[in-house]
Every structure is written in structure tokens, then in C-alpha cells.
């Protein structure tokens, strides 16, 4: 089994998702199963293959570096769980 409980906890912390002890046990098995299954890609020789960066061959588009909107603070904070005077209210970040 390649994913142990410590790894599940490390990954969950990186992903900022709280997992209970019971969930961590189930995830060990599920994640290991999925990762074992994707390991079949090792059968493919990709030593001289470039990784795909885009499916449709097209030149990266350029645009003028100009302001296209603004003065929409009402809209930006409209869905905030907590806001005050166009500021997002968040938990204390710096002690």
C-alpha cells in the first residue's frame, strides 16, 4: 500500500481539508487503489515524448495591457460570507 495514514494527513493538510480518523483510514485504501491503477502508465515508453501543453494548436493570444473594468466593489463583495465597507472580513491572520 503506497499511501499510509501519515501521507493521507499530509495531503489533506496541503489541500486544506479536515479529515476525521475514520475517513483517513478509508482514504488510505481508496487513494492507494486509484494510484496503483494509474501506475499502468509506466508501461508506456514516453522517453522521447513531449508533454501536451494544449490540445488545439494555436498561437497564444495577446491583448492590450489596459484596464477594462473597475468600480465594481459592490459586485465583488456581493457574495462574501462577511464584508464591511467593501472589505472582506476574514479571521485574524497575523497574531
Amino acid at each position, binding site marked *: 500500500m503506497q499511501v499510509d495514514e501519515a501521507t493521507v494527513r499530509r495531503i489533506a493538510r496541503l489541500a486544506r*481539508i*479536515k*479529515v476525521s480518523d475514520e475517513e483517513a483510514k478509508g482514504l488510505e485504501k481508496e487513494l492507494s487503489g486509484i494510484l496503483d491503477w494509474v501506475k499502468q502508465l509506466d508501461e508506456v515508453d514516453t522517453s522521447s*515524448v513531449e508533454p501536451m501543453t494544449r490540445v488545439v494548436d494555436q498561437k497564444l493570444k495577446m491583448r492590450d495591457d489596459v484596464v477594462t473594468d473597475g468600480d465594481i466593489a459592490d459586485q465583488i463583495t456581493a457574495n462574501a460570507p462577511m464584508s464591511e465597507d467593501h472589505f472582506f472580513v*476574514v*479571521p485574524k491572520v497575523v497574531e
Partner: protein
Amino acid sequence: MTDLTKLTMAEARDGLRKKSFTALELTDAFLAAIEKGNASLNAYVLPTPDHARAQAKESDKRIAENKARPLEGLPVGNKDLFCTQGIRTTACSKILDDFKPTYESTVGQNLWNAGAVMLGKLNNDEFAMGSSNETSAFGNVVSPWRRTGKDGKTSTDKLVPGGSSGGSSAAVAANLCLAATATDTGGSIRQPAALTGTVGMKPTYGRCSRWGIVAFASSLDQAGPIAKTVRDSAIMLKAMASHDPKDTTSVDAPIPDYEAVLGRGVKGLRVGIPKEYRVDGMSAEIQKLWDDGIAWLKSAGATIHEISLPHTKYALPAYYIVAPAECSSNLARYDGMRYGLRVNGDNLIDTYEKTRAAGFGKEVRRRILIGTYVLSAGYYDAYYLKAQKVRTLIKKDFDDAWNKVDVVLTPTTPSPAFAFGEKSGDPLAMYLEDIFTVTVNMAGLPGMSVPGGLSAQGTPLGLQLIGKPFDEETLFRTAQVIEDSAGRFPVPDAWWMKG
């Protein structure tokens, strides 16, 4: 008056043009059907009757003034992945809570600019992650289809409508809209269409703008329609597609009149049959469906060629690296600070962790964790880079095939619709639902599912057509030949309308 909800989109368009009925009458017929039938099917998570009637009235005004637009007065459903200005959009996740976008998706705006009427927001798997619509925070969508036993009796077992666009497929099959928007990341338009006897079209990556669509895996996501007929899906795609400066991956290419090619037939068309799709354990009915499709195209003048797409078996495992990786990155934005749910914790990180644990469902959490793992320090090359290299090979398989054939024909799914719970216990069994569809997303190609027959249990089966980049026209005219040969497959009994 005839039941207006049973009309195809093309028939409804004709009826409105001839003034056989008004846009408001048409919209009211669908709103009444939703009112009555949605409780059993759960296809809509938010019907929007007032909004629909206002749009329909505007359409009637324009029709009276001879200013009708291409989709004037035609009622459609909108998958809840598409942002709707001022109307709740959740991606069917708790984490978006009561989110009301302050803008409209480009695809949606294109439809409304063309005169279409929005009946409401349609259910889907949470963040479009699932193949059965069992992961939605609003509960399962029930397919309008039911199995028939060997004794000829209809079972009341609830079947899945496919996913992730299960609300779209169920609503179209059940006549709760003329057509619906949908999205497809690994098969989420084509698989639900196949399971409900509807037509699903996933265009080439870049054909439709992704702006304003809740992102799952950005290099794979693409919008398209689910509709009752091939013609209806051609009408819808023409309206949905556009070049959009707000999505740099949307392509600046002319959008053909897809309806104009429907009658062109397939004489001389070279149809590829990939031998790698003859997977072990393929059921006799899926094999027969495929053989029927081959025979129909052959008798319409196409030539049939066996081709090889050697990396087919690696598409699904590569997808389950690429899609979770991109999902873990895209879904990092749901942190409970700027919009959506917030669950307060002891400190900032605790708030993040509690919010995301409470807001995301099980399958979404699983995919974020897989994606975080494969992108974490020391694993990037072994997983993500490897998968993107395999993806190059999958695309090359198709590039080689296009030297020999113009279109590829396969079954859409390995099996007919299943009942709830039959596959949800095992993530890998569910992932295999997409085995025939996922290669198309990995290569960015257009793919279409069109009904081809019924299973032994009387439920629909779909045939998939895969085309060259931006050659949706060939898919539409080939699909039309299949539809003409196979016939249409309406649900035999509208049990959900009986209360």
C-alpha cells in the same frame, strides 16, 4: 391543443414562426410540466418561472414585430455549472451555498441573445464530478427511463440518468425542456445522453467559451448541448458557440450553419472502427448496437475501415491524473473568504479546513486529494508530467487515424443505465463508465452521442461519433444518418407526470 412539451426544438420553432402558439404558451406548458414532474425526477434544482415568463413575453413582442432572433421563445434548461446573473448558481455543491453570480456565462448569454428562454437551473454531479448524478448536494436525479423485465413488466427501480449532466439529460428525455446546456470533461454530455435516449454533442475544445462556467479541469472542460434530435443539437450548438476574448482558449474560427449540412448524407465518407474499443467482456447488446451502426452507415454509402488507436487503454488512467490535478488547483479558490460557505474554526487554517470539509462532498474531496498528491513535491514528474506525455500519444493516435478516415464510430458507454448504488461503492467501477468517451477530451476532439437502440431491458443505448478538430459538421451529418436509420427513442410512459 397538442402537448407542446413533446415538440422538438425545430418543431417548436416552426410553430412559433407560424404563430400556431405563443412563446408564453410554450413556456407555460413547460413550467406546468416542471411543476408536476420535477418532484419525481429532481432534474431542476431551481426552476425560474418568473424569469422564464418575462423572457417569453419579450419573445412574443419581438415575434409580433417581426424581429425574431434564431432561438426566439424556445425554452431551455441551464446546467447549474453555468453562472446566471442574479440567479443562484451552485455547481450542486454546498460550498457555493447561496452564490448569486453578478455576471452571466458567455454560452448562456449567447443563448439569451438568440432569444432562448431559461426555464431554470439543472441538477448535476457536484462540480461535474461523477457519471451517475449521485454526487449532487441536491440529491440524485432519477432517469425517466425504467427497465422492462423478461416478463414484459416494467420495474420501478430507479435508474441513473448518467452524469455529470444528469439533470440536463433527464429533463430533455422527460420533456421538461426543449434542450439543455451541458458540459463534458470526460464524457459528461455524451454518457448521460446515451443513457437517456437523447443526443449529446461535445464540440472541439475551444469551440464554446468556458467563461462563466464553474471550472473543473480547465484543459478538458467544454460546453455543449443535450437535445432531443440531431437537428436540435445543431440549432443549439450554433447559438452556444462563439469566439470570446474572455476565454483565451476559445478559438477564433467561423461557426458553420450546422443545420445546413444535416441532409448531406455520408456517401463516400470513411468511417473508422477502432479495434481497441472491442474491450474484453463487451456485452452482446453493445456489440450488436455497434454492428447496427456500421451497417446503417455502410448502406448509406460510407466505407468502413478498421483502425488502431493503440494508446486507448491508457486514456482513462491518464485522465484520472490530469483531471484531479487540475481540479485540486481550480477548487483551491473555495476558501470561505470571498464567497460561498464559511465554517468558522479556531484560526485561519482551521477555518479553511472546516469550510472545505463541510462544503465539498465525498467524491470531490477524493479527487482534490488525488490531485494534491500527484502534484505534490517529488511526484510531479512521475504522475502529472507522465500523464501529459501519454496524452500527446493519445492525440497522435487520432492524428494518424485522420490520414485514413474522416470520422470514428464507437459505442458511447460499455453498458446501459444502471440503478442507484450499483456502482457508487467503488470509485474505479464508476470511472470505467467513461472508458469510451474520455479519449476525446484528452485529445480535445469533438464527440457526439446519438441513440442507436434499446438494451435487453428496454433502456437506451448510444453510438458515439468522434471527429477531426472543428469538424462538427461531419459529426452532425453522420449522426443524422444514424438517427434516420435507428429512429428516435422517446420514453414509453410518462410516469413522472402522474403524480
